[in-house]
């Protein structure tokens, strides 16, 4: 007989669809992008700031779609605003996302239309300040579940989410701003990309080899390997393509793909750690 009860899962894997890792990606990107936009605006690099606030807006739009579409009853999305629940990272997250995306949309709208510039700048600043929280809160959200692969990396998962967000935001800048303007984005991409590799290493270490199998085996493992390949090549391109728009764009595209793939890798690892009861049993043995 298989482990546990006929090898059946002890905890249930998520009922979520792939919209959720997509949301993690888009939301993370949006958060870091808004912060970069704010920083660039402050540094008077309006061109990159413009690209980044649009990036944040695009990320918010995708996020909003994913969040609502993934609900089994999307028409009841507004029920999210019924209560404020500090015990629920999703409830907290909904308010973070609402404040953040509201600010981003106002800022981006003002940027496009030129209307109410000062208000636009103000909300851009707000968005920039909330941005990092937007990028990272999803790590709390998934950490606050019983999926061992998400629950156990208490220290490293937020770091991974932060690094991935930084990389994706930087990649966005590489992709949509010219080589002349995208220096900050390039640096962010390089810092983020490198951090991702390091944090992943730390994550495996934090949860130990038995639990790390959730990340290294099966579909999650394949995705993680692809993500690493994409990221490393993206980093190389980003480092080499300082003066080339084309190479920058390739770097941006590779790193965006890498970030997205990494999100899926993490997501699948969580699912895998629920589907096979050995992870739960192993985790609760050591507890």
């Amino acid at each position: 007989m298989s482990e546990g009860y006929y090898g059946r899962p002890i905890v249930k894997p998520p009922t979520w669809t792939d919209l959720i890792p997509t949301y993690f990606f888009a939301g993370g990107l949006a958060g870091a992008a808004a912060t970069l936009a704010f920083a660039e605006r402050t540094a008077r690099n309006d061109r990159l700031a413009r690209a980044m606030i649009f990036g944040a807006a695009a990320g918010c739009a995708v996020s909003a779609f994913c969040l609502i579409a993934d609900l089994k009853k999307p028409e009841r999305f507004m029920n999210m605003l019924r209560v404020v629940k500090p015990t629920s990272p999703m409830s907290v997250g909904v308010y973070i996302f609402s404040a953040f995306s509201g600010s981003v949309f106002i800022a981006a709208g003002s940027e496009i239309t030129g209307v109410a510039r000062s208000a636009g700048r103000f909300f851009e600043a707000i968005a920039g300040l909330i941005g990092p929280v937007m990028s990272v809160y999803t790590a709390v959200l998934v950490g606050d579940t019983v999926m061992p692969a998400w629950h156990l990396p208490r220290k490293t998962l937020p770091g991974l989410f932060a690094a991935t967000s930084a990389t994706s935001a930087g990649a966005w800048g590489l992709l949509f701003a010219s080589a002349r303007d995208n220096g900050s984005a390039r640096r962010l991409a390089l810092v983020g990309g490198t951090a991702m590799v390091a944090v992943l290493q730390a994550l495996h270490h934090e949860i130990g080899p038995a639990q790390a199998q959730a990340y290294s085996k099966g579909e999650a493992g394949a995705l993680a390997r692809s993500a690493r390949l994409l990221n490393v090549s993206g980093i190389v391109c980003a480092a080499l393509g300082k003066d080339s728009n084309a190479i920058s764009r390739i770097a941006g595209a590779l790193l965006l793909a890498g970030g997205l793939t990494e999100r899926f890798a993490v997501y699948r690892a969580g699912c895998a750690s629920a589907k096979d009861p050995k992870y739960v049993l192993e985790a609760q043995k050591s507890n």
Partner: protein
Amino acid sequence: MVKTLCLGPLTDEALRGGIPGTNGARVGKTMSEHALWPVLRQAGGKDPLALGSAAQSLRTADWKARTDGAKVVKSICPYCAVGCGQNVYVKDDTIVQIEGDPDSPISRGRLCPKGSASLSLIESLLREYRVKYRRPYGTHWEELPLERAMEMIADRVLKTRRETWEAKDDEGNTLNRCYGIAHLGGATLDNEENYLMKKLYTALGVVQVENQARL
């Protein structure tokens, strides 16, 4: 002021969604309290984390067992011969629930999975309510009014009885019977039904009357 704080899309469904038996009867206090945006109820202080009463919906507050106020009809489980007591709950001429009768000294209110499924047995989607007729050598079912079916069956009984009547055996002993008709069934039926069946069959001379007791 309170009205503007009612979040339309949030509570509309809750307000509409009555469950059978509650008939939308709502106490004023509940209404005003539960119609309030839960966030404000949270802020009211009793349940700041919205883990209890503050998050309760109007429907939940009104939600009550559908058997509440239903007529209780005493019955006995139709499956095996343990003879568990059943309470049949009826509202508006519809059975809303069947469960164990705690008064029964045999079953003490308990039921097995079959007994627990009695209502699903009665309400099964596979149950049919019209007579179906298949003519000799027919390839499909036909509709047949109940009255007509009863008439036809009575005719068949008498015809077969006439044709297969056995007055005496070869040795001249009295038989007084109709050997062309047989019957099967009874162990799932009521005593009264078995009694009328046996009485009628015996009068008709039908002796081949049997039920599950032997099966």
